[in-house]
């Protein structure tokens, strides 16, 4: 029976209510969940945390510009196959010459085609009931990749190359499939149609405080508040690359090393801001906008909130 309980997050991971619902729906219907949203909003974390808390097998396929369905499902290792068959010839020759040592094929047999099949994450997940399959950053893939996946995903069945062996799963044993995308390219409509879609909206300050608390449970309330306040202020400046949750957490890691008073000071002076702002032009913009207004002004604003 598929794992279809309603999962709402773990100690380290605050799962947004809507996301939890979409994820539940996807698992109940046996469809992949496609998550889009700004970078650093915890898209990839969802399946990782889900698998970890429920102790399920996790298979990850990080997508890149060279991804193809073969890597994702399974491919036949022609190189190894050729090597082993050559080794057979060589061994025969060596025997003729009276040499005793033999070259090894590490137990593979060239008559056994399935020895040469390298299973990709998809084939592994489909042969493990109730596992979790993460296809990360599918928008980085070549344009035809999502369409190639369609067949595989909707038929719950893969045919292994060369050997013809079939790996299939039922709706009940279907792995929970999570696909993430940063929207760097539009995905084909037909592909999206086969998925349950969820767009992660950027969390509100109150939720953000909860997220920070999940990661740093001992953090001082006031420091969290001031840091988050400044964080959202930076996001409103209209930067080229607005800081995300991940970056806030990194910055916070730096801040929290210091005693409270020192930490507050560091926040107001935007120390360690390199963790939040990633481009030169953004940095200039921040400096111009925040420090042209006198710095005491800035401090007052954040203490006020």
């Amino acid at each position: 029976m598929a794992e279809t309980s309603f999962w709402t997050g773990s100690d380290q991971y605050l799962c947004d209510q809507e996301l939890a619902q979409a994820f539940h729906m996807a698992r109940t219907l046996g469809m992949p969940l496609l998550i889009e949203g700004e970078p650093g909003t915890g898209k990839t974390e969802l399946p990782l945390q889900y698998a970890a808390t429920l102790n399920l097998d996790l298979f990850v396929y990080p997508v890149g510009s060279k991804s193809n369905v073969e890597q994702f499902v399974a491919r036949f290792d022609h190189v190894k196959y050729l090597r082993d068959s050559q080794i057979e010839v060589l061994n025969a020759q060596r025997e003729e010459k009276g040499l005793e040592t033999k070259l090894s094929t590490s137990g593979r047999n060239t008559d056994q085609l399935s020895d040469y099949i390298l299973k990709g994450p998809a084939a592994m997940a489909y042969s493990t009931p109730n596992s979790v399959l993460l296809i990360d950053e599918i928008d980085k893939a070549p344009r035809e990749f999502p369409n190639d996946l369609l067949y595989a995903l909707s038929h719950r069945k893969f045919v292994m190359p060369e050997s013809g062996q079939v790996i299939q799963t039922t709706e009940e044993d279907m792995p929970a499939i999570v696909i993430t995308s940063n929207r760097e390219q539009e995905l084909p409509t037909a592909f999206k149609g086969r998925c349950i879609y969820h767009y992660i909206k950027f969390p509100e300050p109150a939720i953000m405080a909860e997220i920070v608390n999940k990661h740093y449970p001992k953090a001082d309330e006031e420091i969290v508040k001031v840091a988050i306040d400044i964080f959202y202020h930076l996001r409103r400046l209209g930067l080229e690359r607005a800081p995300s949750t991940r970056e806030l957490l990194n910055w916070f890691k730096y801040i929290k090393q210091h005693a409270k008073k020192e930490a507050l000071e560091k926040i107001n002076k935007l120390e360690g801001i390199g963790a939040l702002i990633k481009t030169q032009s953004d940095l200039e913009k921040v400096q111009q906008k925040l420090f042209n207004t006198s710095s005491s002004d800035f401090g007052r604003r954040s203490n006020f909130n």
Partner: protein
Amino acid sequence: MFESLPAKFKTYGLSADVRTLLLLRKSMEKGLVNTLGDIFLVLKNIIVKEPNKLGPFSKAYYDYFLSIQIGDGERLDEAIERSVTFQKWKEKFLFEDRAHEQWSKDDLINRFLDEVHLTSYNIQQIVDGKKIFEDDDPYLKDKPGNGSDQDERILRMAADYRGVNLEDILKRMEEIARQQMDEHSGGSHWIGRNGISPYGHGGAAKGGVRVGGAGGGKMARKVIDDARFFPIDMDAKIRDDNMDAALAALKGVIEESAQQKLDVESTIKKGLKRGGLFLPEMKDVIFEKMQIILLIDNGGYSMDPHIKPVMELFKKMKTRFAHDMEVYYFHNTIYDRVYSDVQRRQAIPIDRFLAHDKNYNVFIIGDAAMAPYELTRLSINNWLSIKEKFPKTAWLNPDSIQTWGYTETTIYLSQIFSMFPLTPRGIEQAILAMNKKN
């Protein structure tokens, strides 16, 4: 069931069809749909496939299921307040043993939203919060009620929701869709009587469960108020806010391919090292090709306002992708030369321009409007040779498409080149046309 749903949702620019209904039905069979709020969630996850469809979707939902039409730029609260649905609901809500209570307008709207967006998840949350419900025992009636009256009511309602069968649900839904919101026997409609809300604000707070105002209603409100959740105007001239859409369209010119190829050199080298045992060595080859020529008419005031956004657009393109892009300028039309600088001092003879590789995508950006005598035979011949040389050529015209028919030279040039408006949608169409020719 819901036959009219796809048509209604289509009027809001959403794609909904028979498959949508099938998926909805399947969700019902799987027990995902028990309340009106559940329908909102389920349909949202099925229909909305990009963030800027969330706005139209919310509007369509309110229109279809609640007969609440939200006008352009109108806030959700306003739309709800003036709707007949809300008035009827309010009457009933206040009539029920609440006549003596004071309810502010905002409280009422919040309450209404809570009831509309109440989901099975909320119910489950309340129930879990009470620690009375066992996960595997949906029929709570049998358990001794050891709480207050209110607790009992909550449990009764929750049990009621989880116990209903599919046909009942379908029937209820149909009633909503048909707007039969008047007197019915208790519990057969979602909004009205004690109806759909098994909790009170006090009750929820007592159980320590956050429900009121925090759920779907709040989200719907936010979505309706935020332009980011509505589609950008694809037919508007390129500005900062629809630049990304234009950029996305422009990405279509990139030819991208990835494959594994036999690496002959390394196969031989390693084979020799192995003493003549040649094993194929593979290498990954990625091709990302984007060759672009921009041919911009920068003569005259009519073109001035368009040049900056166009350059900005292609500059962004350049920073994001490795590629080959050249820009040339002309004034009104091309005679025997184009220019490589904005001031039009560095002349490039047309022959040299035509010597470019024929795989370049050529975008001509200009209003094509000039005095008829300017478009001489020589000029026309040059346009024709550009078209012949570069099969992937498109003319992007910043003037609005309605005016094209009034200028003789525009009509003439649009017969030579495929002409598209300089808008995100125009660029998208131009690129589709370019790619089709190959």
